């Protein structure tokens, strides 16, 4: 299994109209500073060998000043030595909201499945998710949301159900139309009443 390059993966999401946070690879701290342009950014290490980035201290959020960015960049490059080959990605900070996961998995027997659940650091702690065989209908997507124990948190008592349903339909189409994908994680997607953005993307071929 091979991890699809982050920027390639982002392009694929763009093609299906799935919004993700503005990102760029940076090879020096100066590049990161210029990307930030005075706005707070996140720096992350991208490597095949690191699934749990946040837990491993490979995510540095809320970097606003040149000093913060430079310090974080140096820390990440030293931590990532054992994760070679790796890249460092700079991302704009997403607005705050509820963290969800939308995922996909190909099964050789049955085909592609789509998943939605409480995301971020809660994924494995609560294991609260709904799973369906693709392609799904709008009604399926609404049923999936209804199955979640955390449905009231995730949908803000129903207000964001339409947004989430639309994401699910788009991801289902992406999974169906792209044969080579074996696994997909959009975790987290940050959802609020004003919209959503995928903050981390992981596609395995």
């Amino acid at each position, binding site marked *: 299994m091979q991890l699809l390059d982050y920027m390639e993966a982002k392009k694929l999401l763009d093609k299906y109209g799935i919004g993700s946070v503005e990102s760029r690879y940076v090879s020096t701290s100066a590049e990161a500073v210029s990307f930030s342009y005075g706005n707070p950014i996140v720096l992350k290490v991208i490597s095949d060998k690191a699934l749990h980035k946040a837990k491993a201290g490979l995510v540095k959020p809320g970097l606003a000043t040149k000093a913060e960015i430079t310090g974080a960049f140096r820390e990440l490059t030293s931590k990532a030595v054992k994760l070679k080959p790796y890249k460092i990605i700079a991302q704009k900070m997403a607005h705050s909201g509820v963290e969800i996961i939308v995922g996909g998995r190909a099964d050789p027997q*049955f085909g592609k*499945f789509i998943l939605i659940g409480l995301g971020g650091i809660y994924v494995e702690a609560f294991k609260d998710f709904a799973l369906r065989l693709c392609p799904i209908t709008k009604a399926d997507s609404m049923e999936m949301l209804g199955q979640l124990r955390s449905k009231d948190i995730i949908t803000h008592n129903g207000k964001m159900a339409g947004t989430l349903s639309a994401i699910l339909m788009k991801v289902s189409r992406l999974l169906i139309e792209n044969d080579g994908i074996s696994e*997909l994680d959009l975790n987290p997607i940050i959802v609020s009443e004003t919209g959503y953005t995928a903050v981390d993307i992981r596609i395995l071929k």
Partner: protein
Amino acid sequence: MLKPKSVVIIGASREPEKVGHVILQNYINAGYDGKLYVVNKNAGEIMGFKSYKSVLDIGDRIDLAVIAIPARFVPQALEECGKAKVKSAVVVSGGFAEIGNNELQDALTRVAEKYNLPTLGPNCLGVMDPRSRNDTLFLPTYKLSKPQVGGVSFVAQSGAVGSTILDLIGGEGFGLSKFISYGNAAHVDEVDILNYLMNDAETKVIVLYIEGIKRGKDFVEIARRISKVKPVIVLKAGRTSAGAAAAHSHTAALAGDYQLQEAIFKQFGFIVANDLSELLYYAKIFVTEQRPKGNRVAIITNGGGAGVLTTDAIASSGVLELAELSAATKKVLQKSMPVLVNVRNPLDLAGDAGSERYSAALEALGTDPNIDMLIAIVLFQTPGADSKVAAKMVEYKDKTDKPVIVLSIGAEYTQMHRIMMESAGLPVYDSPMSAAQSLAALYTYSKYCATHK
């Protein structure tokens, strides 16, 4: 295979401990009234039947061959069945893919395909159809209660789980339509069997115990169609084999193979049971009850505590609601009930309630448009509850078009009444939780049918 007019037992034997002997004995005991032939290379006569050297020597039309000989001889015997134009075969013998002998199993599959001969097994118990008295099971009759005739068809990959459940069904009030144990599924598999049972008019409910699914895409297709026709209750082994520990994504870590299959079952309206007792709870409600129009449940009880426990079980089901009695119903009950009865849901008829009070309560609740389903708690330890109450329940059951179940907890005296009521088609449960879960499953399926026409 299920209703053969003629059967040959290949490997029938005089020696009582041989599988082939038990099978022949069972056909005789069951009173099978089709033609029965036996094939054994060595014996001249077995239990009064002339023994043929090969199925080719019989010279009559054979609908079913039951093969119980050592594995290495099976492909040859099946080949002869093919040549003799036998219509179907059940291979009871073990010693194939389950012990790593894949080549021998492939040989068997090739013969079955060559002659287009529907072949069940190998390594299976085969089939039982109490209506046609066709029974290929090599289980001595005195060791298990064989079920009565009914509407539940039971499909099991595993022979051991299959015979256990068969024995349990024997002790239940509902009867069996078909039992099919398909073992290694070298030729006929779960997709073929579901296809058959979907169109079988004698089968009202399908109960499926499954270990692995072979043809994923075909399984999805049949699953999509079958739930619209009749309910399928499924117990899948391997629940705890969670997602791979070294998964590359969070999705794969959450959605292991069992989760994927469970997702398919739920997506296509199957009723998922978590253990053997749930299979039976669900089977009995689905085979007798109509589909409810909604999720509102009324409870009548002759014990306050049991009413509260049942209310809790309904609330924790996640899908059911306690019904709000209509004004008209309340009025009727206030007139017909003694003053000590507080008119609300759950309706506590009090410990001295006899058949008359039950009857009046059932009549009033039965016509209430706010009620979709009914649980009648009858604690037979109380002074008022006796056979007349049980009879009244059965009488009411025949009149109403709402699902109604009984909750009775207790030993011998209660069990006697349970059997009485269940034989008359009224499901009886022994715990508030199982009663509530069963109604919840019934409602969930009914909702699925309403939204997937």
